[in-house]
């Protein structure tokens, strides 16, 4: 954590009409660091992630990745240089098998090295994907069509696809929401150990404070588009302001929070 930050966010602002979704947010993330992001619904967590991966253009401020300004980059370019993300509601290819989902992710990730015109179902690539399926514990679903998966398995596939290219920054948008209690630690163990091994910086949006406390090196608390706290987990969770605004008396599970993604391009 002594390295130069891999991701620098400076003075990021975003507003939709009168609604301010991000107000002057500045964060540095070092390689290999796991940063938790917490906040109530509508606090601006997903907007923050969407701006880093280029889905939304910030009204003001800059995002620097490994010393390069990537503000307003296209999502596909962000993914290409090593900024990847998973989704709150899993985004997979519904009509394809689990294996094909991963094969496509792998093929795109290696497009600099192998031609996309080569057959998708290449033996070496299949072996590689099976290893990933093993790691995420979804090997048994290999030939199942993605739309028939349980929410948990679908989530795992989503995260696996995001991690295939061994990104340098991985943004996980509520990776454990909708996942059973037994599964959630397994997922997190797999993801975090992989990223630690590769030195990937992880931004982890979570409602589950136990997860945050257990895996994050540092926690940011958001409220109404503002970063109100940036400290080690224990310290943040102890903060009375954070407790009042976010953690709440009975830490309601929140499945209604959905990113406001619009379909029009």
């Amino acid at each position, binding site marked *: 954590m002594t390295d130069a930050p891999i991701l620098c966010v400076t003075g990021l602002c975003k507003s939709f009409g009168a609604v301010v979704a991000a107000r002057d947010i500045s964060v540095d993330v070092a390689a290999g660091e796991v940063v938790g992001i917490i906040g109530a619904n509508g606090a601006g967590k997903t907007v923050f992630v969407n701006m880093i991966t280029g889905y939304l253009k910030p009204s003001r401020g800059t995002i620097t990745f490994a010393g390069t300004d990537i503000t307003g980059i296209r999502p596909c370019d962000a993914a290409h240089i090593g900024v990847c993300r998973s989704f709150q509601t899993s985004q997979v290819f519904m009509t394809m098998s689990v294996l094909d989902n991963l094969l496509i992710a792998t093929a795109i990730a290696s497009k600099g090295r192998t031609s996309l015109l080569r057959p998708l179902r290449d033996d070496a690539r299949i072996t590689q994907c099976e290893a990933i399926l093993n790691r995420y514990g979804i090997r048994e679903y290999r030939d199942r069509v993605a739309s028939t998966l349980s929410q948990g398995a679908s989530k795992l596939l989503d995260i696996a696809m995001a991690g295939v290219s061994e990104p340098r920054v991985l943004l996980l948008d509520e990776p454990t929401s909708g996942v059973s209690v037994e599964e959630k630690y397994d997922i997190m163990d797999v993801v975090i150990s992989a990223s630690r091994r590769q030195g990937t910086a992880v931004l982890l949006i979570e409602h589950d404070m136990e997860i945050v406390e257990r895996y994050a090196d540092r926690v940011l608390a958001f409220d109404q588009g503002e970063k109100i706290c940036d400290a080690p987990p224990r310290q943040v969770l102890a903060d009375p302001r954070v407790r009042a605004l976010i953690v709440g008396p009975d830490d309601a599970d929140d499945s209604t929070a*959905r990113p406001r*993604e*619009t*379909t029009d391009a």
Partner: protein
Amino acid sequence: MQTIVAVLIDGLSYSSYLFIVSVGLTIIFGVMKILNVAHGSFYAWGAYAAAYFIGLFHGMGFPHWFGFVLIAVSAVAVGAIIGLAIERIILRKMYEHEEVHILLATFGVFLILEDVILLVFGVNPYFAYQPMALLGSVKIAGVTRDVYSLTLIGLAIVIALACWLCLARSKWGKILKVVIFDREIGLAMGINVNAVYVYTFVAGAMLGALGGAAIAPTLSVSPGIGIDVIVLSFAVVVIGGMGSIAGAIIGALMVGLLRATAVHFVPELELFVIFAVMAAVLMVRPEGLFAPARARRI
């Protein structure tokens, strides 16, 4: 100057005709999200029915003005019978199908109705000029016009007002707006969406048939008259914004005036300009100039 007036009047009367035909198409699309290729058949059937009955009753010695009654009756009858039949027999079973399948089904219906016209009415052309002859002509800016075409402008305005009143001022309009905005919300609110669909489709069919019936007195009503009308009304509806009545007005005005200008000055571009403008509008404003509000999903 004379030419400009001529372009304006020609354009306006052509626009009126386009509007009357297209407004039914846009209403059906707005409510049911169906792009109905068979709309051209409503037009053709309306024209045939009107021409046939006008000829028949004229031969029986009815006065010329009775033609206007027959035009209205033909439109209502065609819309009610054919529209209802298509909705009940074909579309009713297809609402869950893919968009393309529905579109193709209406294409199939169009092909079938084209030939049924031949089987019912034969191949000889029909003429129903009596209503047009009755109204005579008038001289505007040095060019003689038939009053009948000018009345079409009036009819278009009346239809536009009626549609607006129905949508903006009636209980029906409110129900329609809910269904247009989001079918599921409509269902959740206890609206009988199926009934709304039937009424809408029949009303749209009647308007299409009215377009044909109203224009019939100026035409030789002969097989194949529905083919070109379809793409023209598609152009009108797309330019204005699919599902918007104001859009249909603007679209019809643009297409009508552009075509009139082209015919007067560069006749070779007559057809091209219409579709070039359609493409241009889609490129700049894909939803059309007057897109109605839509529910956002995800």
